[in-house]
């Protein structure tokens, strides 16, 4: 019996490996508006090379039609929200009567920003996500009210800032003062939570390429955020996605903007270092 079991588990393992090999993501190239070629798969950064050879964008795991929608800004429903945020970018708000443009110039000048967030903020002495940086500007430079962390204005603004960075590689720093948060994020990534006892890694590292019920599992990268999801027809923030995935393990989730999710975001972003910023992407 023991032998039989041993043979069986060998079979199971062989079977699993074989299916990972054949369930590869599509072989396709993401070119936006016929001009910008995006990196959707590349060699894994050194700090994840023990777990992955290659890192891949979620775009490669979506169906033909969903992928096509992202190749042209006229077909990408997320771009409407980018336009709305562009108006907000240029509109003065708050007691200082300033707009984002008054300090930063054109939104298109911000192409180096999205790829490096989350990043350490010296003054605040903590890791800032892009949302935290935007709210810091609103509160302390504009004298305006903070936006809700995962509310509409905020997710639109992050879509604008992502859109002007499309094609630039994600490049977050994981060392120096950010290291402690990165370690915490890594710990969270590998913790099996909830009644289903599943970690991010169970689904997105061990099982990407496989079907879990109707879903084709990707590597759970965040280079495409915010994502316009056909399922709920709106832009979805990174922390809302984390929340949904953790909820699906029948766990008590963390809140958008919580220190845990900031740390997890830094860690997950770092797993995609080298992939192009793609937001706003289209997903199902």
């Amino acid at each position: 019996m023991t032998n039989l079991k041993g043979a069986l588990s060998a079979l199971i393992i062989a079977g699993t490996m074989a299916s990972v090999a054949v369930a590869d993501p599509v072989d396709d190239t993401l070119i936006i508006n016929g001009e910008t070629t995006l990196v959707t798969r590349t060699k894994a950064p050194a700090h994840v090379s023990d777990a992955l050879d290659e890192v891949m964008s979620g775009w490669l795991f979506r169906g033909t039609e969903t992928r096509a929608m992202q190749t042209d800004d006229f077909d990408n429903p997320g771009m409407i929200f980018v336009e709305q945020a562009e108006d907000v970018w240029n509109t003065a708000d708050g007691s200082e009567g300033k707009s984002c443009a008054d300090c930063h110039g054109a939104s298109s000048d911000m192409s180096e920003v999205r790829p490096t967030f989350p990043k350490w903020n010296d003054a605040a002495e903590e890791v800032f996500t892009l949302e935290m940086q935007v709210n810091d500007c609103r509160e302390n430079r504009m004298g305006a009210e903070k936006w809700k962390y995962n509310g509409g204005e905020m997710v639109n603004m992050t879509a604008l800032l992502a859109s002007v960075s499309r094609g630039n590689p994600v490049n977050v720093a994981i060392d120096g003062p950010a290291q402690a948060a990165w370690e915490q994020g890594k710990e969270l990534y590998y913790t099996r939570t909830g009644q289903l006892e599943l970690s991010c890694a169970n689904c997105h590292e061990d099982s990407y390429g496989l079907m879990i019920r109707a879903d084709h599992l990707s590597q759970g990268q965040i280079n495409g955020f915010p994502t316009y999801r056909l399922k709920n027809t709106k832009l979805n923030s990174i922390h809302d996605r984390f929340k949904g995935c953790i909820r699906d393990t029948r766990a008590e989730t963390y809140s958008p903007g919580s220190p845990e999710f900031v740390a997890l975001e830094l860690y997950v972003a770092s797993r995609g270092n080298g992939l192009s910023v793609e937001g706003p992407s289209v997903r199902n």
Partner: protein
Amino acid sequence: MRISILTTIAAAVSATALGAAEIAPTAVSFEDGAVSQSLTGVAGDPANGSEIVGDKGQGNCVACHQVSDLADVPFQGEIGPALDGAGDRWSEAELRGIVANAKIMFEDSMMPSFYKTEGFIRPGNAYTGKAADDTFGPLLSAQQIEDVVAYLSTLKE
């Protein structure tokens, strides 16, 4: 009307009586990953078991396993091995152990433990994202486990 009330009462009474004989999730005894004793003492119902295996709101086993016998259930996953022939490969006791807590048979398995109530990290209240409250129970009841085991035993090549 009176008959149906009586039937309901009778059903409730027998459920309570069974409850007494039921083995609690914390009291199941595993031997090499297998559980030889029935969790309820009542023979499993394979028809109900097949419902549970295919139903998203119950076992949702097809989220991870293909089952040719359930060809009418769409979107079968491929995380675990196909369950075809499981009744040939495993004894009833082994199947009971695997469904109750697969992590004892298969170390670190991704398969959830369906008859377990302790040892979770941040357990939630079903799929609400909120913390578990005092309604927290195992993913499947003792009789549901028996039904699933009875169904798996019918899966022969």
